[in-house]
């Protein structure tokens, strides 16, 4: 085996084992046929195509055609919103109110998150309702700001349940679910950590743009995450609006508050939705 072949085979590790067993030799044969005689290392273009191609096969997103993505987008929205709700519960646990009811509420919401990740939507819905109601009765007592996040989670799970199952097998792989949670991690920290931790310059940009960059980067492989994060941002802006309406009536909302908390997230959400749509459109072409 030449050095070039060994390097190509190393790049093929991006593909799943079963795919390599079926097509590995054939792809390497084509790569070697296409390589000039003096080539010692894979060309950057060939390497990038192998890595992206392999990761798409691993994620199950290599077949774009005839796969409507909105049901999957809502699946990831449910994952994101339930992750944030679980973080809220976790924050209440660390806040000194360690009671059986609080533990039960946390477990119910975390359970709903796990069940959604496993596509067990009916049971997830039940646990999310239990977790949400306990949250309202035990912690926040039905304020609009606190109700919106779990209502959003319920709505996402309900819509996934009601949405007709696609004819083709859809894959929402574990990696994408992990990235979906990673994308909302700054939001989780914001929810779970004391407000004082976020005082200082640039924290809003960190909370807003770091996950957006992650969503866009990963969205090249799986555009559903870009759209899901955009929807999640829009839900966050809506929840925040309920607070600002109250503060606005007190006359303490400035125009810079509006730009920072509404215009910027809305712009990011719009960019992500557009980018997700464009990537998806490109993928659904034959």
């Amino acid at each position, binding site marked *: 085996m030449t050095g070039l072949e060994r390097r190509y085979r190393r790049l093929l590790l991006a593909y799943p084992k079963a795919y390599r067993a079926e097509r590995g030799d054939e792809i390497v044969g084509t790569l070697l046929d296409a390589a000039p005689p003096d080539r010692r290392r894979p060309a950057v273009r060939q390497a990038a195509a192998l890595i992206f191609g392999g990761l798409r096969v691993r994620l199950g997103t290599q077949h774009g*055609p005839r796969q409507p993505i909105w049901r999957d987008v809502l699946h990831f929205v449910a994952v994101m919103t339930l992750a944030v709700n679980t973080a809220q519960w976790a924050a209440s646990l660390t806040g000194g109110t360690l009671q059986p009811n609080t533990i039960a509420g946390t477990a119910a919401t975390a359970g709903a998150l796990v069940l959604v990740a496993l596509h067990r939507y009916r049971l997830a819905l039940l646990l999310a309702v239990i977790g949400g109601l306990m949250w309202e009765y035990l912690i926040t007592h039905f304020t609009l700001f606190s109700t919106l996040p779990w209502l959003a989670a319920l709505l996402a799970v309900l819509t996934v349940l009601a949405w007709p199952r696609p004819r083709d097998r859809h894959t929402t792989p574990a990696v994408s679910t992990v990235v979906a949670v990673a994308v909302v991690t700054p939001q989780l920290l914001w929810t779970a950590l004391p407000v004082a931790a976020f005082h200082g310059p640039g924290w809003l940009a960190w909370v807003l743009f770091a996950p957006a960059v992650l969503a866009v980067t990963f969205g090249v492989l799986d555009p559903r995450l870009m759209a899901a994060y955009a929807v999640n941002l829009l839900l966050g802006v809506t929840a925040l609006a309920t607070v600002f309406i109250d503060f606005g009536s007190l006359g303490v909302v400035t125009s810079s508050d509006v730009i920072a908390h509404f215009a910027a997230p809305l712009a990011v959400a719009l960019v992500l939705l557009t980018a997700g749509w464009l990537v998806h459109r490109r993928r*659904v072409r034959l």
Partner: protein
Amino acid sequence: MTMRESTYYVLAALLDERRHGYAIIKKVEELSGGRVRMAAGTLYATLDRLSAEGHVHADGEEIVNGRARRYYSLTPEGSAALRAEAERMAAAVKVVTDHGSGRAARVQPSAGPA
């Protein structure tokens, strides 16, 4: 459904005979006048998509100089999809060429000597 340019040329490369991966890459380059140069990863993603849609199918394997080769052929569905895309593009071309010749026909009488 519109077709990517690379997909169009991959199907076109299989019009006259079955071909293996490298031969498809070379034929695509030739048919497109060197404009479409496919990386192997892109070619196999395209072939996977086309196989899943029933437009091409694997048609024999062999080992040449120790290298594995699998041949691909166009299915009747693939052939129909390719012709449909060609007709769609021809109709699009006709919109422009007809417009040009119509304009020329209208312009010509006044452009001639008085």
